[in-house]
């Protein structure tokens, strides 16, 4: 139900592994890779299983290859709305009598449509609007009588689900469960039902919840406002243009039918990948998946996003005026995660902007003392499509974003001329491995990585196989990508301007 991105950055994964084999001597990732088993159902849904029998628990990760980048004008935020609606139950979960309930739900949609039609007239009849509104509220109450409040959550939590949740990003919608491992079949039953027989009940109230979520994350947060406007300016055409949460006016207007259509288009089995990591057996999980998930009819893989971000014609700048101290974003367009330049860009971001000995921290925080935080990340806001490498500075008291920008530019120019040192490259490679080891310990993060790699990088094996690309990164590569992408005409500057 949360709208947030995963904490870890799966795009780093490959680099981590490079060094692992270096650092670990004989130990190789071929061993782990061989333990991963996959199964594709006749309807196109893919399962990835990694058995781990230490603790009797299991993590499930359903990766729907659809996110806010699949949305168009008028329905921004709908991927995230659908994520919320997936917790509202099915034809049998969350209802006392679906047959009766479904009639009332249709009636409700009908009155809602009439109300909207009247409201959108040049001269709406206010009495009629009020009458329809009262009628709408009446029917909404009637519909509520059929609902078993949060039954899906209740059932999962009651079975010990310690992580029932979901996340929507620009690229994907991901559903998470952690259960005691003897609940494997229960999960199969509950989850297949969710995709087979969803019912989008309590829709209008949930839209209200999501509007509160937007106020919470964007409208009351100066940095949230900046992020939204920054993306809107950096991406003029590609749908990374809009925030995952969507525009308020769209949230106020999206209908239940829009959600049903969107579900039909994007939630077919060919667009779903499931990773299961924990104390289960693949040869039990696969037949169960056949039994439960094969009930979902197959459909075509949805058409890819058409719009591409065109070449930028000049530097762009956006400001948000807020009751806040200054804040600075500098973003440069870079290619997607599958690009051959991705590893070198990761190395660049890491060396420039992560850790106390990174170049930005050294220059802005330690030496010039103009910032308390200065960092850099790539893969923003997603990495399935061409995205941004972003430099962020939080200026120190009494210092300005202009000073921070100048210092960041100084560091960028240095890399364009001299590149990074061998020592820095080694540091990047080792820290990336170490980070991966940390992630691999967790069933949940492992499941997330396998699903991500399978969908975005083109195969779960890429987690292991891209090692070679990372091993090959040279200082010359980093210099080349810096010169290719970190140019002024390719960048957007975003700033919070303090309001008195």
């Amino acid at each position, binding site marked *: 139900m949360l709208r947030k991105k995963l904490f870890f950055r799966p795009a780093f994964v490959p680099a981590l592994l490079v060094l692992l084999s270096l650092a670990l001597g004989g130990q190789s990732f071929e061993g782990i890779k061989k333990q991963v088993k996959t199964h594709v159902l006749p309807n196109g849904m893919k399962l990835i299983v990694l058995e781990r029998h230490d603790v009797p628990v299991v993590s499930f990760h359903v990766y729907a290859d659809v996110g806010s980048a699949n949305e168009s004008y008028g329905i921004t935020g709908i991927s995230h709305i659908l994520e919320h609606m997936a917790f509202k139950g099915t034809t049998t979960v969350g209802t006392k009598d679906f047959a009766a309930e479904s009639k009332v739900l249709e009636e409700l949609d009908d009155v809602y449509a009439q109300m909207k039609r009247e409201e959108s007239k040049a001269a709406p009849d206010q009495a009629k609007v009020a009458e329809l509104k009262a009628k709408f509220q009446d029917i909404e109450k009637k519909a509520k009588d059929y609902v078993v*409040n949060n039954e899906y959550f209740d059932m999962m939590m009651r079975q*010990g689900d310690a992580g029932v949740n979901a996340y929507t990003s620009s690229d994907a919608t991901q559903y998470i469960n952690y259960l*005691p491992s*003897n609940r494997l079949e229960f999960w199969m039953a509950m989850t297949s039902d969710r995709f087979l027989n969803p019912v989008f009940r309590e829709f209008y109230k949930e839209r209200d*919840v999501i509007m509160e979520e937007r106020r919470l994350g964007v409208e009351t947060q100066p940095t949230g406002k900046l992020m939204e406007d920054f993306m809107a300016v950096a991406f003029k055409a590609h749908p990374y243009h809009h925030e995952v949460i969507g525009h308020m006016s769209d949230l106020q207007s999206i209908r239940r039918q829009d959600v049903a259509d969107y579900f039909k288009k994007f939630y077919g089995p060919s667009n779903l990948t499931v990773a299961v990591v924990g104390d289960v057996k693949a040869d039990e999980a696969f037949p169960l998946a056949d039994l439960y998930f094969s009930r979902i009819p197959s459909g075509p893989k949805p058409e890819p996003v058409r719009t591409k971000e065109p070449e930028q014609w000049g530097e762009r700048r956006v400001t948000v005026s807020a009751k806040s101290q200054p804040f600075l974003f500098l973003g440069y367009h870079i290619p997607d995660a599958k690009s051959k330049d991705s590893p070198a860009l990761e190395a660049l971001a890491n060396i420039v902007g992560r*850790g106390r000995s990174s170049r930005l921290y050294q220059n802005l925080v330690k030496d010039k003392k103009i910032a308390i935080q200065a960092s850099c990340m790539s893969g923003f806001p997603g990495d399935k499509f061409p995205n941004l490498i972003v430099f962020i500075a939080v200026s120190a*008291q009494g210092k300005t974003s202009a000073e921070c920008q100048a210092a960041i530019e100084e560091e960028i120019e240095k890399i364009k001329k001299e590149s990074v040192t061998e020592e820095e490259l080694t540091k990047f490679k*080792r820290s990336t491995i170490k980070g991966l*080891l940390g992630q691999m310990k967790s069933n949940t993060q492992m499941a997330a990585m396998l699903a991500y790699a399978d969908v975005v990088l083109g195969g779960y094996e890429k987690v292991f196989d891209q090692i070679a690309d990372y091993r090959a990164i040279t200082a010359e590569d980093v210099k080349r990508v810096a010169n290719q992408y970190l140019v002024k005409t390719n960048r957007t500057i975003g700033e919070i301007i303090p309001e008195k």
Partner: protein
Amino acid sequence: MRKRKTIKTSIAGLCLLAFITGAAYAQKAPKDKFVFGPLNPIKMPKVERAELPNGIKLFLVEDPEYPTIDLWAMVKAGSVFEPADKTGLASLTGSVLRTGGTQSKTGDQIDKELETLAATVETGIGQTAGNIRVSVLKEDLDKALAILADILTNPAFREDKLNLAKIQQKTMISRRNDDIGSITDREFSGLMYGKDSPYARQTEYATIDAITRQDLVDFYGAYFHPNNTYMAVWGDFKSGDMIAKLKAALGPWKKGKPSTLPWPKVNYEFRSTVNYVEKPDVNQSNIMLGHIGGLMNNPDLPALNIMNQILSFERMFKRIRTDEGLAYSVWGDYGASYIYPGVFSCGAQTKSQSTVYAIDIMLQELKKITEQEVSDEELEKAKDGYLNSYVFNFESKSQIVNRLMSLAYFGYPLDFTEKQKAGVEKVTKADVLRVARKYIQPGKVQILVVGKKEDFDKPLSSLGQVNVIDIAIPAPKK
């Protein structure tokens, strides 16, 4: 002991009540009722305990799966022991201990050395404990331990890094009103403990300016002794070897005066108040209401945990979020802490126009939980959820060893988690009502609203006399 439970799922299909463990692949039809076979046993890792000659209390767990080693130590110290006019001293001591370097190396040299190894050695001092964290690839353990020992025995607290840390602290003060959520947390904490209490007081420009390098040296010297230290270590090692390595590396860290830690008392007077912080640039109110909470060693804690689950999810979430669509995040929780009373709070963020309406509902729900027993179903769901997810307390070796170390640090019995479970198994509806009545006082809550009053549905004065809290930041001295 594991209970077998039947649950209603009513997913279309056959109703099989087969006992499934392993024979699932023979199954021909989806089920809509489940009886769960026994869960594979939780293999408890062996936690080795030892005490080094200099008094460090060790908790070790071998975890050979990945070639890394991690360490977390808690040192008897805390910001609650710093003088009020030097608020921020503990935090500065904890960070400059690491960044200020040692007699032989600057902090910057240590940064570079560690990052080249992909290792971390970090120190800090929080409210009720000092912390040391080390994370390293197995092969680099000796190097990381040598750095840690150097930091603990020869800290230099270099002036330039103190000044840098002061800039960071002052910048944080200057930015503390930028985020409505942190304003709410901070001011609510002030209402609960008193704004000058060691549990709630804030750093100010003046308190940061008052701190000298000598203060850091003295604060460190007063508390950071091996015999004040509890240390958990987990990863790819043999316990015997690890003890020997730690003994050799940290041996030069000499014993000092044991901390007695007289935790400051909390004197809470139950009262109803209405408090308001003006935030004219928002369209959503941040609401918290409640009163003081309790300690984790309370024998009623299992019943309180069940009550919390019912109050937060069954009542607040289902009504305020699901039925009313008033908020994204909403809760009701009787907080309990290790050594000083936690806070009982309910909260939500709702559009300005539904502020008082949402508060009214929260108050109604508080009243209700202290007046009527919860339903059988609510109780069963909450208990099943707790007991079925209990296995996640043992999901990783790090989690297990860290929990034991924290329990020991705060003087709690090491079987605390197991006892909580036994307690939860026995909780009844009468218990839930009894603890709700005993610990929650719906008539005496303090309400805090941060938002824009012009847009509220009703004036806050409809809830009581309004106390306006001024959050203006006292200006730095020129």
